[in-house]
């Protein structure tokens, strides 16, 4: 009570959505993308062997990036448009 909540949304696409069996998660209290990956690999071990990159608020990030409050995080398997 009184502590600032740290919530964010995780969108999943393509093969990742298929493996997560959902295209959207609501998470909280995870400060950065590397911590998020650790959480996801534990909860959904089937995505460990799947390549994906991460975007935070629609910008792809590299390495460990902070996840702001209310962020829109997305899990992006390799692109295959065109």
């Amino acid at each position, binding site marked *: 009570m009184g502590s600032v909540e740290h919530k964010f949304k995780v969108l999943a*696409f*393509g093969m990742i959505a298929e493996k997560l069996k959902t295209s959207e998660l609501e998470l909280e209290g995870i400060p950065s993308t590397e911590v998020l990956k650790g959480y996801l690999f534990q909860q959904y071990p089937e995505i460990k062997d799947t390549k994906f990159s991460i975007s935070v608020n*629609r910008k792809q990030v590299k390495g460990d990036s902070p996840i702001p409050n209310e962020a829109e995080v997305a899990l992006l398997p390799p*692109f*295959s448009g065109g």
Partner: protein
Amino acid sequence: MEKQRKPKNIFVEGPISPEKIAQSIANHSSKTDIGGHSIFLGQVRADEKEGGKVRAIAYSAYEEMALEKAFEIREEIFAKYPLTCMHIYHSLGEVKVGEICLFVFTSSKHRKAAIESCEELVERIKKELPVWGQELVDNEKAVWKENQ
């Protein structure tokens, strides 16, 4: 006065028809400073996969991010080449083999700018837009594509 460019929708539901392409070409006949148009069309191939032949590709996208990225790419290409016009259309949903899923269209006074920018746009679209194609084969098994 500088022309203000805003993000435009690039996505169309289902295949891109030859008539749409013709209409887009015809729309440029009033721009009499254009000397050359370059067009790239992506068409769905009936590749052989484990379990059968591809019969269609189902496209999905992270639309908001794709539109922001497409806008960024547009601005960069407009800054780099002396172009009169640039258009990008990408399918969402199911596109059958033989149908068009990508339409990239650049126009300029002299041909070089149109040709080079079109090629660069196609490469960037394939590499940078969060769009995914799932190949649907005869036996209903689906295979996620991966560019390059």
